[in-house]
């Protein structure tokens, strides 16, 4: 099967690669580009580990055809930090011990970022709703919810100054 060229903006960098017709974006990011932060969990859209932001929306990259990402702007967990400065969500996850094995963490971070981008002052229930498509086996979710609420507060404070 012929390969298709596709170009998108990945974490601020214009990126082009050849993809197979049926190849999903998760596979293209991991094997094509070498960004291993989107995780392969179920490959059928039920675990959330592969969540990335596409044009600002949290989407499951295992359910997105790579060839359909032409011209899109994609953010993965690799694009959250600004050089050595961690994103407030990353900092809050670390400070709040919101990761154990860490496999769900990149997807959680991006689901949380999408939430905070559209709602800087979420209630606890909003946070639970926003990460309800992301499975975590270790933490019992409570530390993740606390970390997202803590990051939201930090981001609100820094946006006021």
């Amino acid at each position, binding site marked *: 099967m012929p390969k298709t060229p596709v170009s998108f903006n990945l974490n601020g960098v214009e990126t082009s690669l050849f993809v197979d017709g049926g190849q999903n974006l998760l596979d293209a990011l991991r094997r094509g580009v070498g960004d291993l932060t989107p995780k392969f969990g*179920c490959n059928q859209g039920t675990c959330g580990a592969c969540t990335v932001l596409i044009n600002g929306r949290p989407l499951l990259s295992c359910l997105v055809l790579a060839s359909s990402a032409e011209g899109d702007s994609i953010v993965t967990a690799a694009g959250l930090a600004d050089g050595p400065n961690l994103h407030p969500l990353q900092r809050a996850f670390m400070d709040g011990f919101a990761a154990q094995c860490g496999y769900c963490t990149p997807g959680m971070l991006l689901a949380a970022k999408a939430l905070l981008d559209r709602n800087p002052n979420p209630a606890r229930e909003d946070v*639970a709703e926003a990460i309800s498509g992301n499975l975590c086996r270790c*933490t*019992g*979710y409570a530390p993740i*919810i606390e970390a997202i609420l803590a990051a939201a507060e930090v981001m609100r404070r820094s946006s006021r100054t």
Partner: protein
Amino acid sequence: MAKRKGRGFACINYPIGMNLGGDPSQALVHSTPDGKFMVSLSSIDLGQGMKSVTRQIAAEALGVPVADVYVDTADSDTGPHCMGSFASRGTHRVGNAVIRAATEARAQLLEAAAEELEVDAADLDTDGQGNIHVKGAPSRSITVADTAVAAQFRQGRTVSGRGIFLIPPSEANPETGEMTPVSCFAHGAIVVDLEVDEETGEVEVLELNSAYEVGRALNPKLVEQQLVGGAWMGISHALYETTEPYYPSREHGPVDFNSYLMPGPGDLAPHHIAVIERPAEDAPFGGKGPGEMCANPVIPAVANAIYNAVGVRCDELPITPERILRGIRANGGAQPGGVRR
């Protein structure tokens, strides 16, 4: 028809590790030429924090800053043998092996420093900040980094250590059947408050209150993290998870996360935890590690609370709405407070 509140209680004495045939773990520690320390293990950190805790244990036993210790895990080609990360044995078995390896490396470190300072190694101590000094004379000192350089480039001496910790197999006494299968127990107790809808059989966990005795909490945040996450998993086992809902019939078994039920972030109950520290004699710096007992007592506590709420005694897991409703029907209706005979 109403929602019935129930409270259930359960306790656990949890054996740390196992010894059927012996239960060993090993560790190797060596100094890099710049005075950092590498701990080589084949033990696996599955998310419990073994990498963090063995790093703390090594730093403490070596007498150097935690930042100067690196832990390499999970490769049986490059790390010495470990039985594995199961039976809540990681902190206890691997931690003890790390202490032994670090103690041997520390002795070599102090001998190398003694040669540089021209004193007896027995008169030396570390300050935990990267320096070695003569006891009572802190100004007569040398850095760990300089000692490592001196040992490895001038003295021709290694700064390394080997450690193994083995709980030997315990044979049963042929007369009495007595044996000592474990050397160390951790303990816990949990109270579960929940609500059962007697019309639908649905259970909502309202609150958890627990106390856990873990020896010494070597890393209190990691202990809390395990206890919170483990209790969530216990609720999941009690009320949701199964691969064979109609065992021994294989029908209706889940095949993916769409049909394998687990509570989500919207189904959490507040969990108040008291950690009781009673350092264990044969444990590394007294720490036993919480491990599997985070999840286990939650299950009988939930079952007891359901009995207390509607009088249904379930002895099969998970305790699904269907099982509760069948039990209520068999009892001729919900019997809050338990069945009175």
